């Protein structure tokens, strides 16, 4: 990277920094204890069952992974698309992307029935499984993000900067396609099995990843005075976040419209859109209103200009909306019964034909929060140890 900008570590020898470290470390530790509790007792201590086999930990894990991919936006816009205002934040963008990915994967791993078999997962591959391919996408993502930061920090390998940036950009698109395809390839459940899942996940990753970055950036600025965005960067991010949020909303709209048009999927769509109780509420109030229209209004209205508070509020709303949507996708898609005998009234001892219930238990909440803790811990420690942030007066220029 040819920029003469100076980067340095943050000052960690103060009470505030230790409080933040302890808070994230505590969350991560509690998450680990929750995982141990679940592993020791079995998954019956969770709200999951044989109808809803992926619960809150999956919701948060997939959300973190999706946000991780999108958190790399800022670096990509600066390097691949050559937008100078973004370049000072590129290292932080890479750091956050890697940290969110680590948090998400940790939750995913610790929620396995046999999380002790990590080596099995790393050595036995069935290449028709998108899960197996995603293991490569996720580990490759870490490698590329590290290489990406390396080319930014070390002038000797700076000539690799552009190729690595392009590779990371393409890789994360493939990665999010793979994550969306976990659901897109599920032919058995009427709420899933759609090619629109992949682009919808990409759109969601772009909006939620940028929102996560904005919150982290503004939080660091508030705490340390570092990572101070220039007015130009703030303006661009404000507009970009609004556009990406609208794009995500569009894909969700297209998916549900397409499904509703098909008679075989109308029942499940009617459930999600109108009769699904919590899921309907989360979709309309959580994602559409609070997570899309509200932040778009905040970001594009005349009141938004230069307001960091409104920017943070809008970003938080986008994240809350994205998490709501993920809950609707993962849990809502499972509670609706598999239609083995379409159009018939079906009953059995195994809850056939019945809308199932799912109530996350405390260990699930704690494990999910542990993923956020791991991500926060990584960001905090790396900001202490490595020069990831530009000197404040330069970044704001």
């Amino acid at each position, binding site marked *: 990277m040819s920029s003469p900008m100076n980067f340095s570590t943050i000052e960690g020898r103060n009470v505030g920094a230790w409080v933040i470290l302890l808070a994230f470390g505590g969350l991560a530790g509690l998450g680990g204890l929750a995982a141990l509790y679940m592993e020791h007792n*079995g998954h019956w201590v969770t709200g999951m069952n044989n109808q809803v086999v992926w619960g809150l930990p999956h919701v948060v894990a997939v959300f973190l992974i999706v946000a991780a991919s999108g958190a790399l936006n800022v670096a990509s816009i600066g390097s691949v698309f050559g937008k100078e205002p973004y370049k000072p934040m590129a290292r932080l963008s890479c750091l956050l992307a890697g940290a969110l990915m680590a948090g998400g994967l940790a939750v995913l791993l610790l929620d396995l029935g046999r999380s002790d078999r990590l080596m099995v997962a790393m050595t036995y591959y069935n290449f028709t499984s998108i899960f197996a391919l995603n293991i490569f996408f996720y580990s490759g993502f870490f490698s590329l993000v590290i290489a990406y930061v390396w080319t930014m920090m070390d002038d000797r390998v700076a000539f690799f900067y552009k190729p690595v940036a392009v590779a990371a950009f393409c890789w994360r698109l493939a990665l999010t396609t793979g994550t969306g395809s976990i659901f897109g390839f599920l032919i058995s459940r009427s709420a899933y099995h759609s090619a629109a899942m992949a682009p919808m996940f990409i759109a969601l990753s772009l909006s939620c990843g940028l929102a996560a970055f904005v919150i982290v950036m503004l939080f660091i600025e508030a705490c340390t005075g570092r990572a101070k965005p220039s007015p130009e960067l703030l303006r661009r991010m404000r507009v970009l976040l609004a556009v990406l949020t609208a794009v995500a909303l569009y894909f969700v709209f297209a998916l549900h419209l397409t499904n509703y048009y098909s008679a075989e999927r109308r029942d499940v769509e009617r459930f999600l859109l109108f009769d699904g109780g919590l899921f309907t509420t989360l979709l309309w109030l959580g994602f559409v209103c609070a997570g899309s229209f509200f932040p778009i209004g905040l970001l594009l209205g005349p009141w938004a200009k230069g307001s960091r508070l409104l920017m943070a509020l809008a970003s938080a709303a986008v994240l809350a909306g994205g998490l709501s949507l993920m809950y609707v996708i993962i849990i809502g898609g499972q509670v609706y019964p598999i239609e083995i005998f379409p159009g018939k009234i079906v009953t059995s001892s195994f809850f056939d034909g019945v809308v199932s219930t799912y109530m996350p238990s405390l260990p699930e909440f704690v494990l999910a929060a542990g993923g956020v803790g791991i991500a926060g811990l990584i960001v905090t420690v790396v900001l202490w140890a490595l020069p990831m942030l530009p000197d404040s007066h330069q970044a704001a220029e």
Partner: protein
Amino acid sequence: MSESFETSRRGFLGAAAAFGAVTLAPGVVLYARPADEPVTDKVRWGMLVDATQCDNECTACVDACNKEFGLAGHERPASDPQWIRKVKVTDRATGRSLSMPVMCQHCAHPPCLDVCPTGASFRRVDGIVLINRHICIGCRYCVMACPYKARSFVHEELTDQKPYAPRGKGTAEACTMCVHRVDEDRKPACVEACSSHNRVAMLFGDLNDPNSEISKRIAAVNTTQLRSEMRTDTGVRYQGL
């Protein structure tokens, strides 16, 4: 003298085995495979369920399966495994009801096998879909992917597992078509239990053998594969739906 006796004894046992293959299971000709011979794709094991003969109140097949594999529940129906269940299907327009067992359909193109990241889900060449519990990581993607809701995840500690059916907390499981019995030329427990009733609703046999009773029945009557639009090519067929 003793060698001659040995030879004749082997000949007798061979003849008895061949005879037994025909007569031990009347109407169902099983392929008598010696234990050291690999499984072959010359056979494809399958079942035919006659929903018109299945009594709504009867749970003999479910009880037999639970007994065979020690599937004792923990009084938590939502998370207790079920390998086979009786499903009551009622037509909305006519009110006509049918009852039938639904279990792993032992598909030729199983979605559970496609999604399994480690290859723990596998299909024997004779059509029986199984799970290698030693490399199952408990991701539950197969439970998500099964179009027949046939797989369960073991939510809690198990004790007293059967030596022929390894099971364990944190792994997925499903009907094995009683592979341990099939390899000994016996019928699956559910089919055997059903056979002991007046109204026999389950038939087991080789779908590849045109002379097997199951093949003859499938050739003669209209049968259905569940969710046939998915083209999973199930090994379990239904009559009377």
